[in-house]
């Protein structure tokens, strides 16, 4: 996200650059040319709609809250229950739709913190490749990476109160080092390139070099990983539920639904498959959109 801001800023300063408004129009044109990106945008918008208006659009809003109906437990998909019911008689469709809220919030918050932090540290370490700064940052990253994520989450879980905020915190803490490591690899190889040297000779500030010379060249893998990570973050919820973190019952979450349903496979397949489809829906949306945005800047930027 920080990438497009920088780009636009860079363009503004240029002499023959189009105005910001024209720029947007060019981008929009390029974006809409790619049908998959538009499809992605639609999926993401739908996810957003689900997240905001879940209670208004699902057939059984009460099934999201305090509700138990053993008479209708574990029913296969039918006209009245499109995705069937779970072991407590709750409508899987309503619950899947409601999951979008937590899933969007979680992935946006986690990535919004982990990606900038991880990227910045990776940039710094990569730019100062081979110096003490590199060593310190990367060794700390290594320490965090070398502790298995689930064990780290378990520790955090037992120290903190189990709620959504703390779950996000736990996931964020184990997420940022991945970006640091990823960006570091790219940044340190680019930092030796001629255009970086040029900028140094010209006397550009280190900040400028890192953010405007090196960062744009790391964006592609970051974007790819980010779009894919949306899915991973959502599924982390399943592991967290082992230690009582994540959404607290009865609020549904994709990860928990999938892992709970897994023990009822294959007879009650709908309890696992439909939440998984929900996750796939979101991931698909973010990936198409992510790819679209990246292509748009790639061709527009150079």
């Amino acid at each position, binding site marked *: 996200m920080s990438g497009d801001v920088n780009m636009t800023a860079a363009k503004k300063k240029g002499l023959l650059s189009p105005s910001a408004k024209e720029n947007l129009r060019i981008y929009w044109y390029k974006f809409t040319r790619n049908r998959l990106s538009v499809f992605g945008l639609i999926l993401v918008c739908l996810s957003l709609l689900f997240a905001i208006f879940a209670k208004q659009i699902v057939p059984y809003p009460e099934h999201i809250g305090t509700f*138990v109906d*053993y008479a209708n437990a574990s029913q296969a998909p039918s006209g009245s229950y499109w995705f069937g019911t779970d072991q407590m008689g709750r409508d899987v469709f309503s619950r899947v739709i409601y999951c979008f809220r937590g899933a969007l919030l979680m992935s946006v918050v986690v990535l919004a913190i982990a990606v900038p932090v991880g990227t910045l540290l990776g940039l710094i370490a990569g730019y100062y490749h081979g110096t003490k700064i590199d060593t310190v940052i990367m060794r700390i990253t290594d320490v965090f990476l070398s502790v298995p994520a689930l064990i780290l989450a378990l520790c955090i879980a037992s120290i903190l109160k189990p709620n959504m905020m703390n779950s996000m915190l736990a996931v964020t803490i184990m997420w940022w080092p991945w970006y640091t490591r990823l960006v570091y690899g790219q940044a340190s190889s680019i930092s030796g390139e001629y255009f970086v040297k040029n900028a140094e000779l010209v006397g550009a500030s280190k900040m400028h070099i890192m953010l405007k010379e090196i960062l744009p060249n790391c964006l592609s893998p970051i974007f790819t990983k980010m779009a894919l990570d949306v899915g991973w973050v959502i599924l982390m919820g399943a592991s967290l539920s082992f230690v*009582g973190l994540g959404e*607290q019952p009865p609020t549904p979450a994709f990860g928990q639904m999938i892992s709970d349903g897994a023990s009822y496979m294959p*007879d009650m397949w709908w309890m696992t498959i439909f939440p998984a489809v929900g996750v796939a829906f979101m991931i698909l949306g973010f990936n198409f959109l992510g790819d679209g945005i990246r292509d748009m800047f790639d061709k527009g930027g150079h």
Partner: protein
Amino acid sequence: MKKGLSVILSFAMVATLLSGCGNSSSGGGTTTQAAGGSGTEVTAAAGGGSEAAGGVITMGVSGTPDLDPAIATTGSSCIAMANMYDTLVYPGKDGVEPRVAESWENSEDGLTYTFHLKKGIQFHDGSELTASDVVFSMNRLLAIGEGYAYLFTDSVESAEATDDYTVVFHLKKTFGPFVSALVRLLIVNEDLVMANKQDGPYGEFGDYGKAWLVTNDAGSGAYMAKELVQQDYFLAEKFDDWFVGWNNQYAPAGFKMMAITEASTVRTMVANKELDITDQWQSAETLAALEKMDGVSIGEYSTYLEYNMYYNTQIEPMDDINFRRAISCLIDYDTICESVFIHSVKATGPVPATVQGHVDTAVFEYNLDKAKEYLAASKYANNYGDYTVEILCNSDVADLEKIALMIQSAASQIGLNIEISKAPWVSIIDRMGSVETTPHMIAINSGLSYDEAGAYLESRYHSKTMGTWEQGEWLGDTKLDGMIEDALATVDKTERFAKYGEIQNYIVDELCPTGYLCEMTERIAYQSSYITWPALENVAEGEIASALYGYLHQFADIEYHTEKK
């Protein structure tokens, strides 16, 4: 291309480095092999000769057992113990029956118990079980102070062997259920244990053989330990010279306890006949699927587990008895027995009905109107909406969440806020350590150490268990403590049981500290086409086999027809 190859070569390097790492860590130290590192051949090769028919019966457990009799308390450990060790007395229908002891008597004041042992009982190594082994076992249990030691630490002064076949226990104070509690004194082979002792904190006894007993047995029971691979499986084989004798010619030649809990794993193994008996923690849905398979039946039994919803009686708003009564009316007991813990029995008081000394009490029914009445009578009648009551669930047990949801849903109908949270067992133990952090409600099932109501009442409601997972109520009721102590100190059985009855009524009527969710019926699937399990099959219609944990899994009584497999 050369560089392409280098990539592959580098990857091969990762492999070499890693395997080197595995190598160095498995090569250092002892010479045991890496995978079966803990597997140890038991030296006592008694019996031998022709193997009876019958293969190795395999059962699923949630974790491999502890083999040290002074430590073992977990479910799988109790099963292993019941099959590998003998005790002075054996749990029977009404109280205890003689086992290693032939007879016993106690002094008038109830402070001295004398046991006369049977002669010619052999340990697995062929040596004879004598009175000094019993004394050693008691001293070892008390010195180590773990497992079931707590049953005896307060009462037993000393044990002595007056001759090879007579043991005398001297008590510090009277302890009515002493003989019943002796089912937890597993007799270990003194010479064998001491021959394998290492340095340790117990003076001349070294480590009391603790390290050795982790993977070995020193018992005289029907089966003897063959191999323990931690967190994987435990294998035991038949002991031909078992003193009780082998009337059952189809008894399995050995038993294997495998640590598997995952539903899909269990299902696959049962389908392939790799697993003969499942553990009792399978969901109702998994069991229903297993039952549909050819030759698989569901077995039901009770090990005197009662699921209790602990109410923290010291924090608002649970500190009001009418509020607690209202909560008790919000629990749908019938649905729990029908849909959550299937075929479980409605509880009729703090002690399961099949336990000796139980009395029926005036427990609550699911009734929202009644709940409203109680709520109106409580001191929170006007402001209960301001409180949020927490139900804490063990994150390992999915069924507890179902019950919590049911209560939450009922509570919301009368305007009461309930919040559900989940935590792993370690965090639960910690939260129950102090009164402020103990949740308003938490469902826990507690087992029974010996077959008498007193065992339950003491561990659940006496002040000495406050702050442990056994009591989340924080009653601290001195009157109740006195009543429990008095009952346990009563030697006369009829008198003692009358006192148990009073206590149970007092708890329900005057304190209402707990919601009695159900007496749990444990359900397992087993391969009934080639297994005959008398303990489960010979019960009358509508009844459920019940015994202390482990004693229903007496493999010596089970018929294992390999020829039908």
